[in-house]
Structures are given as C-alpha cells and as structure tokens.
C-alpha cells in the first residue's frame, strides 16, 4: 500500500501555518504531523485526522468524528481542488508571508492581458493578427475539441501584443493563446 506513511518518520515536524480563503471567509489553518496522524486546526479548533493515499491518485480522509471521504486532488497555483463523489470544493490556500507580501502590493496582474485556453483542443481559426486593436468580447480565435467549436473572445479592449498560436496547432488547457497590450 502506497500511503504517505511510508515516507514519514515517527518524529514531530514543525507545524505549518496557512491562510484559507473560500468565498468571503478567511480562516487560519495550522497543520502538524504526529506519527501517522495529522493534527489540523481551523481557527483554533484542532482535530486529529487520518489521510491515506492509494494508487497515487485517490485519497481517503478520515476526520476525528470518523467520517470518511474519498477524494481526488488537483492544484492550480493556490487553488486546491478537492473532488468528492458529488462535487468539487476549491480551497484557496496561502502562505501567511505571501499574503503579507501581496497585501503590501506589487504586480497585481488580474490576468486580463493573458488569454488562455479553457480546454485542450485544436486552434481551428485565428481571427486577429499582432497589432490589431480589439474590443472586449470580440472573437480572437476558434478553439475546437470533441465536435464543439468554442470562440475565444477578448476579455477587454486592447491591442494584440503577441499571438502565441497558429491555426492547426494543438493546445493544452491553460496554455496562453494571445497576449494583449
């Protein structure tokens, strides 16, 4: 059985503090490990939790009250996606230090300059060229997958700074397609 236990010693590890954001709410989390169990506190309420991983992909978590949930897991940046049988919960987790850094304010790119593929597919047509001025909502290109055509539109008014794909090219979900100036 391949469980996290196999790579752990029995010693204690310094607890890790995290900030969790879901919707409007912010919670303070602290995680530490004791032997094969974890202690996780949410806003000061601690519980002992058992988490096991099978086949590298499926996980089972057992809360202190005995409730067991099987789940799949996927992370994109700070977004931790926990997929239960009936729904996926997205947990936004930050290092408190990075929160502070962010609060003090630096780049603040809201992503609207980077137009990305929302799904894997093939670029079937490109409607714009580098240097074109585009208006919000204007079609930039067509992404095709599984018998469906999806028009990718400009998220804001702007000028096409860079065209990163050409017609016929296959792209992965999340790949950047167009950069706006």
């Amino acid at each position, binding site marked *: 059985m391949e469980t996290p236990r196999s790579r752990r010693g029995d010693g204690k590890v310094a607890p890790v503090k995290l900030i969790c954001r879901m919707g409007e709410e912010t919670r303070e*989390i602290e995680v530490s490990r004791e032997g094969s169990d974890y202690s996780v506190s949410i806003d000061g309420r601690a519980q002992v939790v058992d988490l096991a991983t099978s086949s590298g*992909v499926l996980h089972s*978590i057992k809360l202190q009250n005995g409730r067991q949930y099987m*789940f799949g*897991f996927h*992370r994109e940046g700070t977004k931790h996606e926990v997929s239960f049988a009936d729904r996926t919960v997205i947990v936004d987790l930050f*290092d408190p230090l990075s929160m502070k850094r962010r609060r003090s304010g630096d780049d603040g790119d809201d992503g609207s300059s980077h137009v990305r593929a929302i799904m894997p597919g093939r670029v079937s047509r490109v409607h714009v060229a580098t240097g074109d001025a585009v208006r919000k909502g204007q079609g930039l290109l067509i992404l095709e997958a599984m018998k469906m055509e*999806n028009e990718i539109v400009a998220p804001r008014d702007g000028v096409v700074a860079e065209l990163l794909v050409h017609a016929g090219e296959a792209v992965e979900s999340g790949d950047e397609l167009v950069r706006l100036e």
Partner: protein
Amino acid sequence: MKVLVANRGEIAVRVIRACRELGYPTVAVYSEADRVALHVLYADEAVEVGPPPSRESYLRADRIIAAARQTGATAIHPGYGFLAENADFAQACTDAGLTFIGPSPASIRAMGSKTESRQRMAAAGVPTVPGLMDAAKNYEEIEAFALQAGFPVMVKASAGGGGKGMRLVERLEELRGAFERVQSEAGSFFGDPAVYAEKFIASPRHIEVQILGDMHGNVIHLGERECTLQRRHQKVVEECPSPVVGPELRARLGDAAVRAAKAVDYYSAGTIEFLMGADSEFYFLEMNTRLQVEHPVTEEVTGLDLVKQQLRIAQGEALGIAQDQVVLRGHAIECRIYAEDPFHGFAPSPGLIRQLIVPQGPGVRNDNGVYNGFTVPIFYDPMLSKLVARGAERAEAIARMKRALQEYRVEGIDTTIPFFTMLMDNDDFRAGRFDTGFLDRYLKSVELGRSAGEEQEEAAIVAAAILAFEESQLVKLPEESDSSWKRLGRAEATGRWRP
C-alpha cells in the same frame, strides 16, 4: 460472418461484444489517434483508415470498404453517427458484396427526408404534427400555413436534425426573418435549402418507440423510451419505460410505430420518435434508421440484445420473438457520461484518464469506450460511457443510478458525473415532471457543485491543508528551511502537481 465495425468509442465496443458472444470475428477500423482505443484492443483484427479528423478516417466510406475487403470481412456494422444513416454507404456495402447490418438503402432514404417521411407517415395513418407536407416553394406558402394553423410554429430545414436548422416563431412579424435564416443555414449545413413549417407543440415530451423488423415483413415494437431530458436538443438522460406511459398508451404508440416501419418496408432495429403533448396526443417526428445511443435501457427492461437481433436479421433470419412475448420488467435509466466540465459550461475535457473506478455491482451496466490509462482524444464525441441503472421500479433505478454515480471516479479529466448526481435528487425529475425544455431551465436555475455541506467543506479544507503540508515537507531543503513555501511556488511552474 466476419464483421467490420465502422465506428469507434463505446458503440464500436458494444458491437464487438455482441459479435464475440455470437462467435463472429471482428475487424476494428481506427484513425491514427485511436491506435490503443478500447475498440481496437478488443477486436480480432484492426485496420488504420486515416488521420485523426473523422472526415479523413471514420467518414471515409471508400477506405472502410477497402479495409473490409482486405481483411475478408463479410459484413459491416455502422454503429450510430458517422456513416450509420448514409444510404449511399449502405448501397456501397451491398455493391461490394458486404452485408450492411441495418435497413435497406431505400428505407434509409425514405426516412432521411423530413418531408418525404412525413408524407409517407400521414399516408400510413401515423399521426404527424400539423404542417406543410412538402418543402415550401416560397415564403408565402409558409405564411399561409402559419395563419391557418395559428402561432407558434416551427420553421425547419427538410434535411435538418439534432436541433440544427430549426426556429420557433411566436409572431407573424418574426416569420420572414426566421424563414430566411433557416433557408440559409439549411443550404450551408446540409447542402439542401429546402424548408417547411409545422405547428409547435407546447411543453412536449420526446417519446420514442423501439421497433425490430425482419426481411420477411414481421415488425414488432419493444415499448417506448422517455427521451425528454435534453440539453441544447441533445438527449442526456433516457428511460424505459416512460413514467407517463401506461399499457393502453403504450399499445397505441407501439401500433403507430409498427405501422410507420411497415410503411417503408423496414427491417433491422429502428426507432420512431414521437412528440407528445401534455394531453398525451403524439405526433411522428422522425425515424432513426439505426441503432440508437439509448438502446440499452430497452435491453435492460426487455431482456433482449438488440445488436444480436440486428446481426441475425441481417443474415435473413426471421424474428424469433412475437409481439406478445415481449415483456417489460422493471425500469432502466441511462446517463450519458461525457468528458465535459459541468462547472464551466460543459466545456470539453479530453486528456489522460489517470485513475478510473467504474461503478459495478447489482443493477448497474456501463457501456464503456475508454479505460484506465487511456488518453481521450480531442477529435471525437466526448462520450466516455453510458451508465445504465435498472431497478424493480423507477425509484430503485434512480437510487441505483445515484449510488453508481457516486462510485464512478474519473481522475485526470472532468466529467458530467456531478451534474447527473445532482439531477437524481431533483424533485421534478424524481416525480417524472418534465418537458423538453426542462434541463436547460434547470441548468440556468442551479449553481452546480456550489453547495457542499458544512462538514464536507471542512473535510476539503483539512484535506487540502494536509496535502499542502506534505508538499511543503517534500520540497523543504535543509539550507532553506524558512522559504519552503516559495519552493512550492516553483514546483507549480512545472505544471499540474499531484501528490
């Protein structure tokens, strides 16, 4: 008989299963993208027929017939979609000395034209939606019909189907514009600008009847299927029997369906689709001259294997079952499991299936086209499998379906499973109260997947925190013990991280 299966995905696997059970060797055809697709792995022989796009492979009738000749196949099963309702392909098979497992080219042609089929149905006494019998010669003919029948009316392309090339018109002022748009779409989509109009039936249900006919003139029906639940005119949940059809109505529906099939000398398996109003009056919509995606619900309730019936009929055998030997037992429901993300507008989600646990146990059938470790290609229909649950009555079938959906785990790509899980809990669905517009309204009204219970949410936070903790431990280097979290950020850049 040696059968070439001119299809891919779950239906190709379904046909191979039936052939194998009857002892017929099978030949798979595949595009370059499908070398290790399940239908290839399960076939006895396999022939590559072209590059990934369907029009260069699965739609290449010439290459498919050549593959049959090369391998010594004696029959071709077209599945559904691709070449299944192409009369020219059926004819080409026959001309090449191959048995086409389906109806005659003439039956396919007769039912392929909306206007011709409506005329023949009306002549055979099968109720049709009041409407023009022929393609309209001009706009005035459409307007005259609309004024006589009353609004709303539907303007439709004669060669259309699948929700394309049709428009609902509520008022006279909108009629001309609709006529012109449908005419232009019909020309560009279907290569045939012919357009007609018919009365619009409000809040309809979509009920279809499965028929079986042989080459000796025998036709029977196997009861109806409830296919009302559609998303953007595509069926997504089907049942047998319909929750609103009783024995008397079933007999009338079946009688009309048998008359319809006989009117075009139909043999093989086929489906007559009816539109049914709230008053239980039903009208012929179209006939699908092939195996239907949703045929398994009928199989589960009748105990018959429709693909085997097709194979026997194609060899000239007479039907082995009389109408009074067809017994419906219990209830079956099918959900079409797609590689689509229901939380993001059902966007396609092809890719590698990293872990697959399929639902099993009592009352569950899964007609699968994929397997653990398979990469779902971007080129084709996103259907992963058809999940079917049966029970002694409808409530048990629904409970089983929900249980099966909860067991079904597909890691690596998104699927429509969570959408169906929610739907199984919907009161209107459970009560059988819906029409063809129900699902689109339902999807507007709910926020999918946004309602985790409090404890489930807590479990998610705890789970995410532990996996983040484990990751921070993994990347922690002794000399940089303070900045473990930064390293996590770096690991991210290498793409999807999974523990």
